């Protein structure tokens, strides 16, 4: 049994490595197949900012070409790219020259992970519990009114929902700030006031994510639970004289959760791309906003770096879910 488990984990890890390898390679080649020269556009930008001489710019171009190995064959560039990656060197931002891409990502990543992971997990948990309760014949009328309401909220286009939330909570009632990750005046420390400030700022974007997706989770869980409740083992559990709560949790929800977890894995990709919209609307200092600004500013290295991190994050999350899954479903461990 344990050797089976070890084999399963080994196989999943190899899959993970393959995915990462392919992702990194694609991420290297695609920008190089695009028309246009990043260095020249950088120089153009620097020139329009004013001040530099023709001579200087040629020196800069050569300097850059050499630094990034753009004067070398593609294969050498590719190998250098890998070498740099292992040193966390992803180049220098063009739009915020000369800030290193890795530093900008390091600053943005905690914001995104904090907001998205928390909000998605809340939406997933809440939605799953509500959906299961909706399918449970013993649930009361409150559940039967709440969940359909949430479903309606989930059908509202996300940007519209976000606008409504900003209008209500930030403009009309002034409960939460309309955007940003923290107060501009806040001095970040590992202390309680900082934490409260960050959570306070995260409430609206978090609420938008939760409201936007909880109904969908609930709907999926409801149909799963309905089909699980028709299974023979539920009838037999009742014949055993178990308490309804136990049947609901250990026999009903426990089994209905399995496809939900798969759905969570599949939706993580959507979460990553959805982050762009949330962070732009709420002016949140995370990866999504960074990516948006990088694309707008034609900041190739930054785009490349952010996309790579998004892919890696997704791959790591899927790998973790692959590892959790056999704990949830013993039939998987082969």
């Amino acid at each position, binding site marked *: 049994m344990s050797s089976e488990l070890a084999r399963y984990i080994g196989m999943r890890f190899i899959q993970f490595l393959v995915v990462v390898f392919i992702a990194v390679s694609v991420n290297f080649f695609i920008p190089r197949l695009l028309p246009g020269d990043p260095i020249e556009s950088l120089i153009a930008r620097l020139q329009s900012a004013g001040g530099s001489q023709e001579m200087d710019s040629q020196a800069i171009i050569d300097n850059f070409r050499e630094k990034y190995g753009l004067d070398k064959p593609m294969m050498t560039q590719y190998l250098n790219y890998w070498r740099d990656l292992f040193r966390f060197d992803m180049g220098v931002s063009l739009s915020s020259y000369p800030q290193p891409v890795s530093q900008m990502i390091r600053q943005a990543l905690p914001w995104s992970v904090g907001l998205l992971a928390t909000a998605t997990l809340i939406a997933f948990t809440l939605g799953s519990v509500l959906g299961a309760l909706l399918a449970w014949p013993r649930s009361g009328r409150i559940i039967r009114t709440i969940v359909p309401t949430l479903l309606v909220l989930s059908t509202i286009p996300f940007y519209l929902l976000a606008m409504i939330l900003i209008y209500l909570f930030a403009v009309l009632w002034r409960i939460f700030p309309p955007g940003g990750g923290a107060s501009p005046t806040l001095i970040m420390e590992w202390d309680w006031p900082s934490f409260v400030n960050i959570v306070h700022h995260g409430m609206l974007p978090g609420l938008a994510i939760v409201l936007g997706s909880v109904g969908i989770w609930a709907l999926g869980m409801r149909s799963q639970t309905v089909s699980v409740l028709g299974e*023979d*083992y539920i009838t*037999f559990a009742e*014949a*055993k004289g*178990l*308490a309804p709560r*136990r049947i609901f949790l250990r026999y009903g929800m426990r089994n209905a959760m399995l496809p939900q977890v798969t759905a969570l894995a599949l939706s993580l990709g959507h979460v990553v791309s959805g982050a762009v919209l949330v962070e732009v609307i709420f002016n949140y200092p995370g990866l999504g906003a960074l990516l948006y600004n990088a694309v707008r500013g034609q900041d190739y290295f930054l785009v490349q770096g952010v996309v790579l991190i998004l892919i890696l994050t997704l791959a790591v999350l899927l790998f973790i879910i692959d590892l959790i899954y056999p704990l949830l*479903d013993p039939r998987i461990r082969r």
Partner: protein
Amino acid sequence: MNDGDKTRVLDVRDLEVHYDTREGPAKAVDRVSFSLRAGERLGLIGESGSGKTTVAMALMRLSRPPARIAGGEVLLADRDLLKLTDAELRQTRLRDIALVPQGAMSSLNPVMRVGDQIADAILAHRRDLNRKAIRTRIVEGLANVGLDPSVARRFPHELSGGMKQRAVMAIATSLAPKVIIADEPTSALDVVVQRQIIQTLGRLQDGLGAAVVLIGHDMGLIAQFSDTVGVMYAGRVVELGPVQQIIETPRHPYTRLLIDSLPGIRERKALRGIPGLPPRLVNLPEGCRFAARCPFAFDRCRAETPEQQTVASYHVAACHLYPQHDSLPPITASEDTA
């Protein structure tokens, strides 16, 4: 009928289960009565749709919409199961009356170890037992059904069909119930395993002194196991009596045809079925439900519903042929083959 009232562990009186349909209630179980003494084995036999499983579910009060228990009593030691509160009902299930369900293959929770599934059955009723006592009971329970203690640590998908059925029986008997309802416990198993399972059921029952209601459609299996046989047709018990008498001198034409339709393995005879189909159970007219297929049917059968009457000692049949006749007349009409 008044002897041994004290030892009667299960007394079913005029049980009625209806399926609500758009056209009105379908009387899937219509005034079914029978009783069992401790240690007695009753076989309930009938074709698909005769209401056997519906009876089993009603005896556990597990009927789910559209099925609805419409009337009658299920007396377990003088307590009417149908009148218990939800909490009392939970306590009664498994402790007093246990179910060995039809779909043994799918009756175990796929994400729980077998031992945990036995343990939570015991724990639901015996809060006083500590971990060690429960562990002992699990091992004993598994041994009683012929399973190795290591099965406790397995998941259902790691067991064969026969092992799953045994595990289910270990759960059903974990609290030494006085009544066991076995609803086609051998369906989906091969003949050899069927036999072993039925033998195990018999051994368990002897050990516990429990009464068993074995539900099935296989006359051979039922006859081997049971002391008493009840024959169901279209929601009613048409004949009930000692197994020997039922097989040798069936009094109801349906029972007779059912026995005649058994294929023999030694003499090769033409397979014989019973021509026609059971009636639809919605808006049934007065009269015997079997009349349309009965070779002996006469006018009265179509006008008046026959009630159960005693045709021999401990032997009842619901047929208008009695008491005019002592036994079934020979079949002359419609010698159909199918």
